[in-house]
């Protein structure tokens, strides 16, 4: 490849080896949600790889069309699971997005969204806390109810009207306000595990975190929640903001490696996927390269961890119909799909029903449902059709984005199903 003509520049560019590795056989097409929407090659993994390759060879500029396709991708990485050649597509599209950011080619709307959410609110804890408190007050004060029912608002700013319905419910108290740095189980601890409170999870899924802590304590874990930890950086990295992601990663490495941990247990698929990749993002960093690998080696999804140590048998039967949705960042990024299913099936009394197209993205994809609302809803519709078919009472999804998105789908379509994190299900099963 003639790299001297490349329209990419700097260190974070899509890898030539990965680009060459794609043999454009097309086996990724049937699993790509955006190709399913448009049926056009440029919205498919192999099409996007070819576009990236063309920019790398200098035969295509970073055009608006190129930018649109890179941002249209959900980065769900279903294509990576489908690819027999093992092409690391996610790394290509994320590097391309990084190039788009560095070369300032994003549209104003995307740029604004990325700046507000990724550079500021999510990366800076004090800002996230302030914004969340305000959002919480708004949601609980009756103002939101008024807004939701306001036809004037719906008419004036239809986009904002729809988007606000998708915002996660802010918990009354944030997770890190409830728990101290070290939490001890009732029995003698068998394991010492680190726990990431995160950004969105901390303010909007404090209840899920609480369920996870209860489950970990029940399994005799001493849980350490380092005070100095920050957001994992996953939304930033997936949207191509490597600089911020690396900064956050370093802070977390310092915060977690201070403790002697058996594992770092994650209850958010997206965060887990990225923390397992810290080694990759900090590869070559003189100070952090080794530490990053060390930290990544300890990161385990909750289901992965429980599968290893063995799930405690519940005292009572749990006679309910339960189904499972694969979060993309669990099945595709972390290759975890057997563990959660086996764990759910092992709970006495559960009638497990497989969700058709369980590994198809729900359309949440980080901030995708904000930046690409219409497309995100088309993808959600497909998911909801399958969800309804299960006639389950509980649908387990282990990622905050999926929980919010599918819950939104249920409320829009009046589906009466509990969309829960596995921790929440377990807490109910164990009656903790």
């Amino acid at each position, binding site marked *: *490849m003639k790299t001297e003509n490349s329209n990419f520049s700097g260190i974070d560019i899509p890898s030539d*080896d990965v680009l*060459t*590795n794609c*043999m*454009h*056989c*097309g*086996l990724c*097409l*049937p699993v790509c949600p955006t190709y399913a929407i448009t*049926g*056009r*090659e*440029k919205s*498919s993994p192999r*099409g*996007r790889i*070819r*576009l990236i390759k*063309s920019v790398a060879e200098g*035969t*295509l500029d970073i*055009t608006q*069309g*190129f930018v649109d*396709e890179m941002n249209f991708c959900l980065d769900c990485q279903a294509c990576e699971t489908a*690819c*027999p*050649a*093992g092409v690391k597509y996610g790394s290509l599209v994320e590097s391309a997005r990084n190039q788009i950011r560095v070369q300032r080619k994003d549209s104003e709307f995307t740029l604004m969204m990325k700046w507000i959410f990724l550079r500021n609110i999510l990366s800076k804890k004090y800002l996230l806390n302030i914004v969340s408190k305000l959002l919480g007050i708004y949601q609980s004060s009756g103002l939101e109810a008024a807004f939701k029912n306001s036809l004037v608002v719906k008419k004036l700013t239809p986009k904002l009207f729809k988007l606000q319905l998708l915002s996660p419910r802010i918990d009354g108290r944030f997770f890190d306000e409830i728990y101290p740095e070290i939490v001890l189980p009732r029995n003698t601890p068998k394991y010492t595990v680190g726990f990431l409170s995160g950004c969105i999870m901390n303010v909007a899924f404090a209840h899920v975190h609480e369920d996870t802590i209860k489950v970990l304590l029940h399994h005799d874990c001493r849980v350490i929640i380092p005070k100095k930890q920050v957001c994992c950086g996953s939304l930033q990295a997936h949207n191509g903001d490597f600089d911020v992601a690396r900064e956050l990663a370093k802070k977390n490495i310092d915060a977690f490696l201070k403790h002697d941990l058996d594992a770092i247990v994650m209850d958010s698929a997206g965060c887990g996927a990225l923390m397992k990749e810290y080694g990759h993002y900090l590869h070559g960093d003189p100070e952090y390269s080794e530490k990053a690998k060390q930290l990544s080696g300890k990161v385990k999804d909750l289901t992965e961890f429980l599968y290893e140590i063995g799930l405690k048998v519940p005292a009572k039967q749990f006679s309910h119909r339960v189904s499972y949705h694969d979060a993309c960042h669990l099945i595709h990024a972390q290759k975890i799909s057997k563990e959660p299913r086996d764990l759910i099936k092992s709970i006495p009394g559960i009638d497990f029903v497989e969700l058709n197209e369980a590994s198809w993205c729900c359309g949440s994809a980080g901030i995708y449902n904000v930046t690409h609302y219409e497309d995100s809803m088309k993808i959600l519709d497909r998911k909801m059709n399958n969800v309804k078919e299960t006639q389950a009472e509980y649908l387990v999804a282990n990622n905050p984005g999926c929980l919010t998105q599918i819950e939104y789908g249920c409320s829009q379509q009046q589906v009466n199903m509990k969309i829960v994190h596995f921790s929440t299900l377990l807490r109910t099963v164990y009656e903790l």
Partner: protein
Amino acid sequence: MNRQISQNTLSTISLIVGKENLFTSKEDAISYSYDGTPLHSQLPEAIVRPTTKDQISELVKLANKEHFSIVPRGAGTGLSGGSIPVPNCIILDMSQWNKILEIDQENLTSWVEPGVITSQLHQEVEKIGLFYPPDPGSMNICTIGGNVAENSGGLRGLKYGVTKNYVMGLEVVLPNGEIISCGGKSVKDVAGYNLKDFFIGSEGTLGIFTKILLKLIPKPETSKTMLAYFNTQADAGRTVSAIISKKIIPCTIEFLDNTTIRCVEEFSHIGLPIDINSLLLLEVDGHSTVVEEEALKIVECCKQNNATEVKIAQTVEEAIKLKTARRSAFSALARTRPTTILEDITVPRSEIATMLEKIAAISKKYNVLIGTFGHAGDGNLHPTCLTDERDHDEISRAEKAYEEIFIEAVKLGGTITGEHGTGLAKKKFLHLVTGYTAIETMRTIKKALDPNNILNPGKVFDI
């Protein structure tokens, strides 16, 4: 973009199909510049999605008048370059013609549009106890239109034959824009020339399919899938001949060499031993008592020919996993080296062992890494050269190796392509199999039907 097709012509195309069905951006052109074939690409002038056969007819007439070419395309998974653009062409994207129009249970036929995905047809007909056997490796995305144009095969070819054995009728837009229908639901039909068969495997050079009538058969009651491991390729090859000579026709006998086994296992984690020399994946189907009996005989055959182990899949899921893993072989080989050049030679099945030996020797002679797998039962092998397109010296050695493999296959009474087609990739070797007079005859036919050479020109042979 520097266009060869004038803005005026593009406007006319837009009037014919609607502007929402005409794509001219550079990003679109780039993403239709390839199919599944390595080392070939060309930018098209535009991508056009017609929605009716009359629109296709008008486009073809316009192409004759304005002198541009038309390259029909399904899902773009072809492996001989059949749907790769040619200079000054539009891509005719048929992938949205994806409706199954009719399943006729009394006549065991199905009318489909050409963009129907092969595995979707499988699923629909199997729901009602029927069966459409052709199952190319890319069946989860490739289209029936492409299958007919390339006369695709698959894993079940040994017992059930290939696509041409299941096409009963076609509706075709000819290179002059006229529309004809040939064949039909009658099992017997000898009225006139057999035009239908003439279009099958014509690789988009003689007509554009708009409707396809397929033959269905009853779904086999049950099946049994087996794996046999071998220490030498010769033993595996002899096993194939031994099974056939016992008058057993399994629906599948697939061969995988060690390189392929390693790559497939790395991708699919189904527990294949990576230290064995080669394996055969076998399947028998039909009535349960016959299946049991034949499976036993096959196990016996394998053991008599030094199989180190024979395993029988215990569940349907296990059998499907094995076959799915086999289907990934071609792409999985790209784990070793980024560029995989796959060939498609076929020899009479009695010559399988000999051909495998020849491939090994040629691989050594030219110092190129070749992984071989394929449909051993029907003599169709896919020796796949694992290389890197950035290494020009290695690519040139690979090309020489292939030329020699082709020559050897033809010497054994075989052919240069069993199921992928000639397209761009193999046209310079076509004469090895057909001879020059036959190519001249093909040219005469092409010229008679397509005097302006507008339909997929330069594929199969040059005019």
